[in-house]
């Protein structure tokens, strides 16, 4: 980032959740030369047009895989850094647990959206970290959203007339994680009601309920950690559990 403007532009892209990538020469004659890709727009140059084109193709490939790496290309050693848009967490139910959940999810880099119909609960005072507060019923809120695989959904209200439309709506999306709060019995009953309503078993199997990893969570803060730990594990295809009792890479491969 040899120019202020590159930093400012990257910062603005990151803060507005636009995909961005940089390619920087880190060894060789042209150290510091850089190409920047923000939301599909290219600026900067490393070599001639054909060489830049080759670099830009690699930038797109790495960004698609959310990968940062250094490669030797021609006479240059080039560091590719990817800034993919962050995952989103949709929280249905602006309840007590939702507060530490929203705060901790922001700390982890999620874009956080909180949805509830109760104006007393879904307030900016209670959710200072949330990117968006939506005061609507779940089906209405979901209509206005584009939900992709980079989305986790936590359904927390404990009220079936809010939770179930949220669940039905969530199951109609490709969200990578759908968790629903409630006791073991609540979850058995809920699954039966969904079955009775004609939801297929494959969809029902997508629901993580009771929500969270089994860490004995009881306070809202502990529950938030349990839920986020489960989401991180799902994101990385890991089962959760103790590292001391498993083998293999500690870190997920990026």
């Amino acid at each position, binding site marked *: 980032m*040899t120019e202020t403007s590159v930093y400012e532009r990257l910062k603005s892209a990151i803060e507005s959740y636009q995909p961005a990538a940089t390619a920087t020469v880190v060894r060789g004659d042209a*150290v510091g030369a850089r190409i920047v890709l923000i939301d599909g727009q290219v600026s900067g140059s490393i070599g001639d047009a054909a060489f830049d084109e080759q670099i830009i193709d690699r930038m797109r490939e790495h960004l698609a895989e959310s990968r940062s790496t250094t490669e030797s290309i021609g006479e240059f050693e080039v560091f590719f850094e990817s800034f993919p848009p962050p995952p989103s967490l949709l929280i249905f139910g602006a309840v007590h647990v939702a507060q530490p959940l929203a705060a901790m999810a922001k700390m982890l880099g999620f874009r956080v959206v909180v949805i509830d119909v109760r104006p007393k609960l879904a307030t900016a005072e209670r959710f200072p970290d949330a990117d968006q507060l939506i005061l609507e019923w779940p089906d209405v809120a979901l209509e206005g959203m584009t939900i992709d695989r980079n989305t986790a959904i936590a359904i927390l209200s404990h009220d079936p007339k809010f939770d179930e439309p949220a669940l039905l709506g969530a199951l109609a999306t490709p969200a990578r994680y759908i968790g629903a709060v409630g006791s073991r019995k609540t979850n058995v009953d809920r699954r039966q009601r969904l079955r009775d309503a004609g939801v297929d078993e494959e969809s029902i199997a997508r629901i993580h309920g009771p929500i969270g990893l089994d860490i004995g969570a009881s306070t809202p803060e502990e529950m938030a950690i349990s839920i986020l730990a489960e989401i991180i594990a799902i994101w990385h295809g890991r089962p959760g559990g103790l590292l001391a009792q498993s083998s293999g890479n500690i870190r997920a491969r990026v």
Partner: protein
Amino acid sequence: MKELLHDIDAWRQSGERVALATVVKVEGSAPRPVGATMAVSDGGNLAGSVSGGCVETAVFEEAQDVLATGKPKLIRYGISDEMAWDVGLACGGTIEVYVEPLDGGQ
């Protein structure tokens, strides 16, 4: 870098110049992955990390030099056992850290 934006902005607003150190290559086992960043200001502030704490002090000094000269540099930290408590990585890996001025130096 995402997690450092807040600190970087605060330092710059108070008139400090900032260098960014990024892990660009990892060989073997290393405490932090490629892409890990640490920001350093000429006012002596430091945020983030490029290793678990092994080489941060050395990177801090390199960053001051980068801010003084305005020239980016690539530094390799590797590791012999005798060095492990000096400026090496205790866990035996090798990392390359690219340090650059955020605002062009001078």
